[in-house]
């Protein structure tokens, strides 16, 4: 793990590591850096699809919930309107769509990120508490196919890092 002082240095280092053939790398930063996920080769997430699915489930479920209740389970004549008065069902259909999509977005994001996760090895690294303040970290994970401890250390030291250290698994 290498520690940097600025987002630019971290992104540059991440690009170097990717170019050197490392694939199981990760950056840690106190705020989102768009270029960083590109640099470590993380480009796509399935989250939008999950949210879309949530929205479709909400829309279909919301509408047919009302349809079933008003037409099948408990048909009741209100002012001579048809049982299936679909325009009157639209507001609630819309609200259900938004509700389910929002739940999908939040819980989908947490699930894909495997959160909550109380323990993670990076928390053992010295100074890692600064990752939520003003420090930027680059990690080469040992599960990387190209990983060799000494060579990875040498590589990280060749970057202009403030500090380089080992992280116990």
């Amino acid at each position: 793990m290498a520690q940097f002082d600025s987002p630019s240095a971290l992104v540059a280092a991440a690009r170097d590591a990717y170019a050197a053939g490392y694939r199981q790398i990760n950056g840690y930063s106190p705020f989102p850096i768009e270029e960083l996920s590109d640099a470590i080769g993380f480009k796509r997430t399935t989250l939008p699809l999950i949210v879309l699915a949530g929205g479709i489930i909400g829309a279909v479920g919301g509408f047919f919930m009302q349809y079933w209740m008003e037409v099948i389970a408990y048909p009741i004549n209100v002012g001579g309107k048809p049982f299936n008065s679909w325009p009157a069902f639209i507001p609630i259909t819309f609200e259900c769509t938004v509700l389910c999509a929002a739940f999908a977005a939040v819980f989908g994001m947490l699930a894909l990120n495997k959160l909550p996760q109380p323990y993670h090895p990076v928390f053992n690294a010295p100074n890692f508490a600064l990752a939520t303040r003003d420090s930027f970290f680059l990690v080469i994970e040992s599960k990387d196919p190209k990983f060799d401890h000494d060579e990875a250390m040498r590589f990280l030291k060749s970057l202009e890092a403030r500090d380089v250290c080992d992280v116990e698994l």
Partner: protein
Amino acid sequence: MDEPRDDRHVSIHATHPVVGSELTFGSVTDKISAIVLKRKTPIWWFVGFAISFALFQLMLLTITNLLFKGIGLWGVNIPVGWGLDILNFVWWIGIGHAGTLISAILLLLRQKWRTSINRFAEAMTLFAVAQAGVFPLMHLGRPWLGYWLFPYPNTMGIWPQFRSPLMWDVFAVSTYATVSALFWFVGLIPDFATLRDRASSKPFRIIYGMLAMGWRGSARHWHRYETAYLLLAGLATPLVLSVHTIVSFDFAVGIIPGWHATIFPPYFVAGAIYAGFAMVLLLTIPLRKVFGLESFITMRHMHNMAKVMLATGLIVVYGYMIEAFFGWYSGNQYERFMIWNRMHGPYAPYYWALIMCNGLTPQLLWIKKIRSNLLVLWLISFVVSIGMWLERFVIVVTSLHRDFLPSSWGFYSPTQWDWAMFIGTIGFFFALLFLFIRFLPMISIFEMRTILPEAEVEE
């Protein structure tokens, strides 16, 4: 043509920056988290919290009394079945709208200045919606059966009636409250992690640590996080517009003169944003002063919020004009009488006070000097908050008290318990806000970091 415009754009940014130039990642973090973690709780906090908590007890007392005696305790009766309770509901929920507007719509519009006020505005939204929810629930008469509003399988074998706007309202308001809470919590996760890593006492480290759920700022996490946040903003944007639209349907779908109008949805939404920005200004002007947050919430924010208030205020004034115009143009005697009665009837002082507060006072905001004077700006916001309350009074009460048949006309005056309930919710609102500014970062720390100049990645 583009050149001179660009220059002017730059100069406005130079004179009124979004963030103070002396800030760094470290100092932003330390300054905001110190309010929660390090600084001694000031005396005024205890005094303010005690007062608002005492008023909250007044609300609980009213509710207890109400449960014993029924809603006859309030001044509502036929023909004015909706009194202060429903108008307070609309007032509170309107205030909530500014929070979502700032956090979602301005995010999508890439307005960087939103960053230092969005967290606070979202908290305000949540607390305002909580107050709003109390009123219709208590107005049910038998609030302990409030769950009957939700569709659930029951032994009576009946289901809700979804053609009624009141049912739409249940879904709209509960969805709004849920999505606002989710949005707020997701925004807080990285800041919980910051507080976890900064806290010096173990209990706080554990509590903030649990709330942060193991957030560690991984690039993969941030990527998904940003996606989720943007999608939530995209979902909240139509949601916030739908909520006050549906609230306005509660009125517009009815056939009461003065309610049955197509202008209602846009007019209500604009009024909600208007009232909400007034409340944000009302609260941030003193807060930035006492906590010394002038480099986070700059004069640029004050100007922008004042301008939004002016713009939405003009839409609201347009609504008043259209109401009056259609009262006359409809040729319908009931509509004509309604607007005449508003202007000359027993509640006419409310109407003219409303025009004063909402129509005339905010016109002062055209003047730059006035927007720059925080005391005057605060007073204008206060007047607008009162004006928006009067607007709902005029809509709810004057329309109901003169019905189609003169034999069913009546008069409504709120009782002391109406006022006790209203003042009680104000106390509850402020009690929650006091707890919020003491225990949670009132400015989004991680988003502040992103708008610092040093956050730019240089190639």
